[in-house]
């Protein structure tokens, strides 16, 4: 990628605050590190590890597709993939065999139909079995909120009367200590690493996003480590209406990846490639066409970069 972003990541440390190991606390003691500017390949190499709990977030908008492709290229294995809407990006990761387990609330191709790789994995264990942990959007959003808040659980009015609680131990009743009312508790999500895409970052790694910002802030703050891909790195973050700014000291690494959300979009930089989403239905329907697509558009594209 861009030469100016390939600083070393060797001194990047986890940020799981109170859960940090003593060694890490000591390493971090002298001062809070600002987010490192890295290449996408470096960022994925250092921050996404086999067996990790990985959240790639972005609610239709700002989906970190380029980072997902890099994870596929680097052949990560046994990932627990977390995402409210495992749409095309997780269809690709699942079809490529990176995932062991999926934690999610809605797995479809928005406005188009089913995710065929996801279905193939669940129905036929291809290319490998996929465990599911299934929630509602409200539950997933609150699980990230709890993670970002350093709480072990969140409370909501949700799931009641549905068959969802029967299939996981991660949905439990809780009683209000004031009214006696029964509500629902879900445990915090604490990904090992969260990856999101944003419009801009400055050279200190402060990240700015706007438009539909979904659950990205919570997903980043809930995680031990975070990687943010951005459309561009700028000298100064000009304030924008609707912006969410994440301070550089709350982020592990930032990589400049223009167009890194395609076929999703970055408000103000690109538009959603709806044709791609529609075409994905045919591409992904069969294992062969999917593999050919993966080979051409992910593996070979990476080699050319």
């Amino acid at each position, binding site marked *: 990628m861009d030469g100016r972003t390939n600083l070393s990541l060797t001194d990047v440390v986890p940020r799981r605050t109170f859960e940090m190991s003593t060694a890490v606390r000591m390493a971090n003691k002298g001062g809070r590190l600002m987010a490192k500017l890295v290449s996408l390949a470096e960022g994925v190499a250092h921050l996404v590890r086999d067996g990790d709990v990985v959240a790639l977030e972005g*609610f*239709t*908008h700002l989906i970190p597709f380029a980072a997902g492709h890099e994870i596929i290229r680097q052949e990560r294995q046994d990932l627990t993939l977390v995402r*409210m*809407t495992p749409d095309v990006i997780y269809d690709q990761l699942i079809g490529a065999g990176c995932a062991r387990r999926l934690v*999610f*609330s*809605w*797995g*479809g191709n*928005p*406005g*188009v139909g*089913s*995710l065929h790789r*996801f*279905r193939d994995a*669940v*129905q036929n264990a291809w290319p490998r079995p996929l465990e599911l942990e*299934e*929630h*509602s*959007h*409200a539950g997933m*959003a*609150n699980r*990230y*909120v709890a993670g970002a808040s350093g709480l072990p659980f969140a409370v*909501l*009015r*949700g*799931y*009641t*009367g*549905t*068959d*969802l609680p029967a*299939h996981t131990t991660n949905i439990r009743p809780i009683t209000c200590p004031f009214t006696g*009312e*029964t509500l629902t508790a879900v445990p915090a999500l604490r990904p090992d690493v969260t990856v999101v895409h944003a419009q801009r970052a400055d050279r200190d790694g402060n990240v700015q996003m706007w*438009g*539909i*910002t*979904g*659950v990205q*802030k*919570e997903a980043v703050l809930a995680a031990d480590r975070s990687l943010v891909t951005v459309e561009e790195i700028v000298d100064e973050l000009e304030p924008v209406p*609707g912006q*969410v700014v994440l301070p550089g000291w709350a982020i592990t690494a930032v990589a400049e990846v223009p167009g890194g959300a395609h076929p999703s*979009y970055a*408000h103000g930089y690109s*538009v*959603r490639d*709806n*044709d791609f*989403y*529609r075409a994905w239905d045919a591409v992904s329907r069969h294992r062969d066409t999917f593999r050919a697509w993966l080979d051409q558009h992910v593996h070979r594209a990476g080699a050319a970069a």
Partner: protein
Amino acid sequence: MTDETTTTGWTADEMMTVAAARQLRDGTACFVGIGLPSTAANLARATHAPNLVLIYESGCLGAKPGRLPLSIGDGVLADTADAVVSVPEVFNYWLQPGRIDVGFLGAAQLDRYGNINTTVVGGDYGAPKVRLPGAGGAPEIAASCGEVVVIVRQDLRTFTERVDFVTSVGYGTGPGDRERLGLRGGGPRVVITDLGVLAPDPVSCELTLTRLHPGVTREQAQAATGWDLAVAEGLTTGEPPTARELAVLRALEATKADGRRQ
């Protein structure tokens, strides 16, 4: 939408969408899913309900899209919204406290008590015959909106005696169940299909055929229903789409194609 146009000049899907749009009262706030609900809600906003407040789960409050979005996160929704909030906020501050009047849901399976399945069909949960997308926002929309409007094509595969999985609760196993479960919204007020309109019986909570679309018979409706379908005493036939409704709907549908290269 199917392309099959009836001899009366509109398709069954168009009739369904128009009938659904008519259910939305002006000035109410409506939680809108993508697909048929979004089409119907935008048709309502473009015809009799200009002040309909559209809430999309992507966090867009009061979106006023000039064309149909393909996804609930299209840029046009954020650009035209009164406010764009985070996803946790739209569920916690807006949906959960009951601020949204109408929840607009689809279904892969629907039973006689209006319970909805969008999770798995056939086999068992761990090894289903068909894996569907799952819950999304639906369980809490069904629980917390003032009322729910369901829009779904009616056939034996969909209208089943029992849903294979309860993703979103209608009236559960019957009267009193919503109260027992502590669900604070009113539940399904109406189900709009390509054949007619069903509403829960006030006493039994069972979905009851109350209206047929023009040209549809009660026998056709029964044949498309996987249980012994109750029929209201005053079963009526609905009004066909007006020329304006059809024109606006078709113009909206055309924008979906435009949106492909938005």
